[in-house]
């Protein structure tokens, strides 16, 4: 295996492949940075152009766009509170507050390094552990997926903030939003109010852009005369060199990267879950957990290394088993098939150069982020904030409109985005935290569907939820997390009651 890895290296270092890595990463950062343009769309558009070339060139582009977009998504998340991709949602939690405090430069730099580290760890996992991890993938059935979702939902306890009932109400609201549409198991319409629009449910990205990106734009519009951003930050060099970052975040990075890889090998779970779980873990572990959500760079480090560590790991089930872990993996499989390579267990032995070459490319593009990310992001995108806010408001709104429109090509989506924006604005002002809403939207349906699938398979025998070894392991982990959280809360009790300030 390691021999094949080394043999593939010269193929990857050819001129054409290197160019494709470079171009791919650059395109990826740009695509990720524009809300609504997602890597899936970009790869679907680029792949046909490469059919005439060597497959390794096509895969180089894919690797670049994939890794680049994961970092690119962090740029609007940090600068404008718009999640460029759904996976960047956890990056907004601390990224945007940092920008408003005048630490946007540091936030971008942290995001860039974190993405690169997450991507590198993930690529290394893909290179060395792929066949082993693939077995884990298969061991996860609906019962285990259910527990993973519950694990994520329970971490709401970490995200709710000080007001438990408000946090829970937010989360439940999220679950309800996630339930809208045709139920995949019974085929029944739920909460569609007989409108055709709601039959398909709400598109995740539209909900996220609405809830997160619209409220700050409205606030910006309201306070034109005061300065909304502390804009000097981009002229000054971020304090502390890269070594400082490394010293500060290596713990977070290693923990989040492991979480990202673990989520990555589960098809269908996705980078947004990886980022949220990493963020929760970082917050739970931190001694200064109350500064999370108010511009703590550790939050960005956790979210970005988590979602990027999902990337290469998500390729493990697709390359080893032929089961696409996400839409990008599905496109890669499609591309391999067009080049006459049959995905599945035989791929490693039949075309090692392509498979191992692709792994190298995932590694190299993660490293390229450090070079291109800093250059493109801080030099180009950060200039956006220098615009007078009377112009920043309408341009941001146009950007969101085009982003939401390109998802489905449907104008109704724009009104829906605005409605979610108003809801988000209202919830904000009434002191309801938004993060649990997102978690509810994402994980509520995942928990529900998998619970019902488990019951269908086991014919309503709920003991299967506890008798399978992996399920039991997750349940145990869940208990540990809950107990430690309870212990932490109890210990903090004696402190004087904090002021119920705005969340």
């Amino acid at each position, binding site marked *: 295996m390691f021999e094949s890895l080394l043999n593939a290296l010269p193929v990857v270092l050819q001129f054409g492949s290197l160019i494709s890595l470079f171009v791919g990463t650059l395109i990826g950062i740009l695509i990720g940075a524009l809300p609504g343009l997602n890597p899936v*769309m970009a790869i*679907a558009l680029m792949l046909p152009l490469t059919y005439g070339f060597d497959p390794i060139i096509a895969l180089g582009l894919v690797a670049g766009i994939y890794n680049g977009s994961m970092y690119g998504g962090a740029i609007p998340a940090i600068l404008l509170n718009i999640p460029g991709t759904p996976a960047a949602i956890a990056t907004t939690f601390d990224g945007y507050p940092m920008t408003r405090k005048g630490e946007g430069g540091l936030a971008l730099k942290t995001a860039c390094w974190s993405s690169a580290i997450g991507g590198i760890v993930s690529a290394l996992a893909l290179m060395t552990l792929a066949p082993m991890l693939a077995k884990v993938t298969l061991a996860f059935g609906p019962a285990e997926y259910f527990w993973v979702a519950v694990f994520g939902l329970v971490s709401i306890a970490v995200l709710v903030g000080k007001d438990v009932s408000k946090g829970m109400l937010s989360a439940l609201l999220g679950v309800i939003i996630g339930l809208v549409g045709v139920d995949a198991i019974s085929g029944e319409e739920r909460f569609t109010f007989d409108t055709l629009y709601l*039959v398909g449910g709400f598109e995740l990205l539209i909900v996220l852009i609405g809830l997160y990106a619209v409220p700050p734009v409205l606030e910006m519009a309201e306070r034109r005369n005061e300065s909304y951003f502390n804009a000097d930050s981009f002229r000054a060099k971020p304090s502390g060199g890269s070594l400082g970052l490394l010293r500060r975040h290596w713990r977070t990075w290693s923990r989040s990267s492991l979480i990202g890889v673990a989520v990555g090998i589960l098809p269908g779970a996705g980078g947004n879950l990886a980022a949220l779980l990493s963020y929760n873990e970082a917050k739970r572990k931190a001694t200064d957990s109350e500064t999370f959500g108010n511009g703590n760079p550790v939050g960005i480090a956790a979210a970005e290394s988590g979602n990027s560590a999902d990337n290469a790991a998500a390729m493990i089930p697709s390359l080893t088993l032929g089961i696409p872990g996400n839409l990008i993996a599905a496109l890669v499989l499609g591309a391999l098939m067009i080049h006459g390579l049959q995905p599945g267990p035989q791929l490693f032995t039949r075309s090692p150069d392509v498979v191992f070459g692709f792994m190298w490319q995932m590694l190299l593009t993660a490293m390229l982020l450090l070079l291109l990310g800093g250059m493109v992001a801080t030099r180009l995108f950060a200039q956006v904030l220098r615009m007078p806010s009377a112009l920043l408001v309408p341009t941001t709104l146009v950007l969101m409109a085009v982003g939401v429109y390109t998802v489905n090509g449907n104008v109704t989506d724009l009104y829906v985005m605005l409605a979610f924006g108003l809801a988000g604005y209202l919830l904000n002002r009434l002191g309801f935290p938004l993060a649990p809403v997102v978690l509810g939207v994402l994980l509520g349906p995942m928990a529900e569907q998998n619970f019902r699938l488990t019951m*269908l398979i086991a014919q309503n025998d709920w003991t299967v939820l506890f008798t399978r070894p992996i399920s039991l392991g997750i349940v145990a982990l869940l208990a540990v997390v809950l107990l430690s959280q309870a212990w932490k809360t109890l210990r903090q009790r004696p402190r004087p009651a904090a002021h119920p300030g705005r969340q």
Partner: protein
Amino acid sequence: MKTTLLLTTVTVSALAFTQAMASDYPNRPIEVIVPAPAGGGTDNVARMLNQYLEAELGQPVAVLNVAGGGGAIGVNQFSRARPDGYTLLSTWNSPITTVPHMQRVQYSYETLTPITSTSQSAYTLCVAPDFPAESGEEFLAELQANPGKYTYGNDGVGGTMRLAAERIFEAYDITARPIPFGGAGETLQNFLGGHVDIYGGSITPVLPYVEEGQAKCLLVTSADDNEALPQASGLAALGHPELETVLWRMMLGPEGMEEARAEAVADAVARAVEQPEFQAFLAAQGETLNLVRGEALHERLKQETQAIGGTLENLGLKQQ
């Protein structure tokens, strides 16, 4: 020499010009709605076809993926488009012939302009190597003997695969427990992990595992046997060719699209599928060419819609 060249160029361009004047279609980019997510089988085939279609039509053809609702979301949106021939639909059969029985939709096979069908492929039912059956007949007998014992993964309520299986099970008086998954990939994952007993889905993803001996496919849902799966029986071999349910793909226009434009697209598709690269691609996907256009396509849609309506009614899945 030079003059002849010049003359030919002039004539050719003049010809092209008059032709363009005659139809004047298409003269700007065309949008093709694919009611499935990017990266799926429908999307892959549509994008591949578009590449060659662009050359034939002389205009860029952009794909817009509108996924959800078993394809109904995309087709609903499409049915509201202007019938000027600049918005086309590239779909598989289920959103047109099955989903309208189960959900409220804004279209039916009657309100869409038939252009042409493109390709088709069968589904397969596979089991683990230790399953007590070695042929299609034994497989069905085993299921018959153990009602409600086996679970089969499928593509969800109203999915074509589930319907294909239920039609066969109904004829053989079989009760198997359907487990709805998001698609063939998810079904394969759960089948290989041993979480469901039977794989139900398209042929391509499971093929490597058949070669490795980790799965044996015993049934295909087409009338004919499938070369790639020698152990599997086609429905004709079992004496039930009328139960054939396959996945097939087509291009449609919105209601009221000009016939001349529909013809122009159908002609372009017919020329595009002649490309050897496209045919090789189809073969790799396990699909075969199948061109039915215009009225004949309308008739095919009508028949399938009615047959499926009957099956769904028997299953108690039909919505009033």
